[in-house]
């Protein structure tokens, strides 16, 4: 039962490293390096801060989204939950609640939005795609009821300033701290805890997971609650970043999040993917858009790039497997002919 080194030649097993997540990480680093050389102002510390701020909502929401997609489900209501908490933040502020009260309250409300999703999906057994499309509309609608088309902008500067500010006089944005902290926590849970192991099992075969004593429904329920809470937090950060609580904050963000997660190598069918890959996917997407915007590429063209990347991320792994299979067969035929 010794380790069988792959192949005839006895080369080290490269195949294990040549996975989609590592490919996307390498590609991301490449794009960052090339862009800082080729694109003016890309490598500046100011631009770095902007990029981190742009990346923040996508990355934070992508963390629980990765968990959810790994279990084979989806949450499309994330951006609407963000919008709802943003509106409520404005409404609470107008009703003279202190910001120290408002922030935990918003996170809690996000979690409650997740409770509703989780109950409909795991309690009633409804498909998550349909449920969260429904709550996507519902939560956005509630956001409009709360705040209409007005905006609340007079949040205290020490909060808004902190979100857009940097550590000391340096170029490290403050928001990088919660981003890294959450990414590390989610990464450890997914890749080095029993919960993480069970998520992959649920996504790959929910029945076998159930037969192994994993509480499939309960696990999924909590994922939606966590997703909602993170969206609540992002709703707060978003509002503070733009100093503007609006009902349409973050509209359409769910697509960017899902795109980044899939680009990062998570299978939409569940059971596969890694958090480093997803983070690379988010960075790649943001960096490309940022670089193109610096080059004065129009918004429509940016959308085309995002869309094309998404299609490619689904297409490429398939092409690679096919080519690899054909190549292997040909090699075997040749060695047999000899």
């Amino acid at each position, binding site marked *: 039962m010794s380790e069988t080194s792959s192949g005839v030649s006895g080369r080290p097993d490269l195949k294990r490293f040549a996975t989609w997540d590592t490919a996307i990480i390498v590609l991301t680093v490449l794009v960052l390096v090339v862009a800082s050389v080729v694109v003016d102002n890309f490598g500046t510390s100011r631009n770095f801060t902007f990029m981190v701020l742009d990346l923040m909502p996508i990355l934070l929401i992508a963390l629980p989204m990765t968990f959810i997609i790994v279990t084979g489900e989806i949450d499309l209501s994330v951006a609407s939950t963000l919008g709802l908490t943003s509106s409520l933040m404005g409404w609470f502020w107008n009703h003279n609640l202190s910001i120290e009260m408002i922030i935990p309250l918003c996170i809690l409300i996000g979690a409650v939005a997740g409770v509703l999703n989780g109950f409909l999906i795991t309690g009633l057994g409804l498909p998550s795609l349909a449920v969260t499309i429904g709550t996507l509309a519902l939560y956005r609608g509630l956001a409009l009821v709360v705040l209409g088309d007005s905006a609340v902008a007079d949040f205290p500067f020490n909060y808004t300033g902190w979100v857009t500010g940097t550590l000391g006089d340096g170029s490290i944005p403050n928001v990088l701290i919660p981003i890294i902290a959450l990414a590390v926590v989610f990464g450890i849970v997914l890749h080095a805890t029993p919960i993480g192991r069970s998520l992959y099992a649920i996504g790959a075969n929910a029945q076998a997971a159930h037969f*192994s004593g994993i509480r499939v429904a309960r696990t999924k329920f909590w994922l939606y609650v966590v997703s909602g809470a993170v969206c609540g937090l992002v709703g707060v950060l978003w509002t503070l970043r733009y100093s503007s609580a609006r009902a349409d904050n973050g509209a359409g963000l769910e697509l960017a999040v899902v795109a980044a997660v899939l680009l990062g190598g998570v299978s939409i069918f569940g059971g596969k993917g890694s958090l480093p890959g997803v983070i690379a996917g988010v960075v790649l997407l943001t960096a490309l858009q940022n670089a193109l915007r610096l080059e004065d590429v129009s918004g429509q063209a940016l959308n085309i790039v995002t869309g094309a990347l998404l299609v490619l991320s689904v297409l490429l792994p398939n092409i690679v497997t096919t080519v690899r299979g054909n190549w292997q067969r040909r090699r075997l035929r040749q060695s047999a002919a000899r």
Partner: protein
Amino acid sequence: MAEATALLEVHDVSKSFGAVAAVQGVSFPLYGGEAHALVGENGAGKSTIVKMLAGVHRPDTGTLRVNGADVEFAGPADAKAAGIAVIYQEPTLFPDLSVAENIAMGNQPLTRLRQIDRKAMHATAERLFARLGVHLDPTRPARGLSIADQQLVEIAKALSSEARILIMDEPTAALSAVEVERLFAVVRSLRDEGAAILFISHRFEEITELCERVTIMRDGKHVATEMVADLSVDDMIRRMVGRDLSALFPKQEVEPGEVMLEVSSLSRAGVFRDISFDVRAGEIVALAGLVGAGRSEVVQAVFGVDPYDSGIVKIRGKRLKPGNPRAAMAAGMALVPEDRRQQGLVMDLSIERNVTLPRERKLARLGLLFGGAERRAAAKWTRQLQTKLGRLSDAVSTLSGGNQQKVVLAKWLSTAPQLLIVDEPTRGIDVGTKAEVHRLMSSLAADGLAVLMVSSELPEVLGMADRVIVLREGRVAAVLNRDEATEESVMYAAMGQEAAA
């Protein structure tokens, strides 16, 4: 039917998956008018051969010849066009389409207006069923058909596309004795019409009953192709395994200990009713009965993966929470389920993840897992069960059926259970592994484990069990002690009055 041109010839075919050579230089012919058995232990390469003939895999080297001409299948459609039809153990019908629609799928008859000609479709289905001598309503949906009937629909479908070569991959594994007889009658009539049949089965009595010729494989290599009449069952087994098998069912005598499991009046509407029995430490108790008698449903309810309406399950005298596998596991219960691929294993996950799945929380240190503890546990248990594998990090789907079953056993034995429930523990696995599994169960019982076994194989039930509980239509039909249990007494109880008719 002497050495005429073979309808299909497998010639010096090899196929590897990564570093694993699944099939190496295998050749055998299939003649028209002949049923040809393909036997070998699990992992011998039978399924790979089937998949190559079905056009799912392409051989790395070697050729397939249909009517003497080399063919190359780019996909299943090519194999179908060459007249090859494959009937799998679990048919893949469209459940919401009617039987006739399923048969016509892919070549529906059209009216002049290019609409589907339903009348012609139904007539074709009727004609095919008449030819097969079976009674099935072509207009009913495929959903709810028994596996046996679904297979007949698949066979009718094969006939409708003028298939001359019929490949049957363990078609009888999930069938009852009566259904097997009906299937064999159909196969015989097709054979007599000149079709070539490739028949894969682990049951030797079926092979001697149905087949003229047999090809034996071992470890991906061709061992022999001979007339069945020239070989005894012992010959076949010896060549498959490459050694003599000692006693097939080595059940040790054990003095039963305390009552481990006590099931009283367990009922679930429409599934089973008023089931009561107990299992003592050191005992092997078998649940026997026909397919559909509710055996798996009972053990799944006991373990808690299925709910039940009323009744009590006690383990060591303590009442168990219903519908809670976790509580059952904590109480020392383990269930090796019937369906390895759907219930027993997560096929896409690695071997080590599968082995450690039920007890990740016990392996974690401070709630964290970094792979080392899992790897050690998985290595220990797979070695103990002599699982043949490449790397522990390989997907469990790369293993052969018998080795997959060992992984499921390793997974549950590693939880150190006091009551082991095994549902069809040797279904679809080869004689060698089968004997190992039996020896394992017997020695576990000798060590004081209580074993509850569901099995459709009578020799297994009779050889292993201290007590046999026969279920019929969701009720306990008989409880037989070891000395009372014979093939006749079990079958009679399982079939009730209908057996006499």
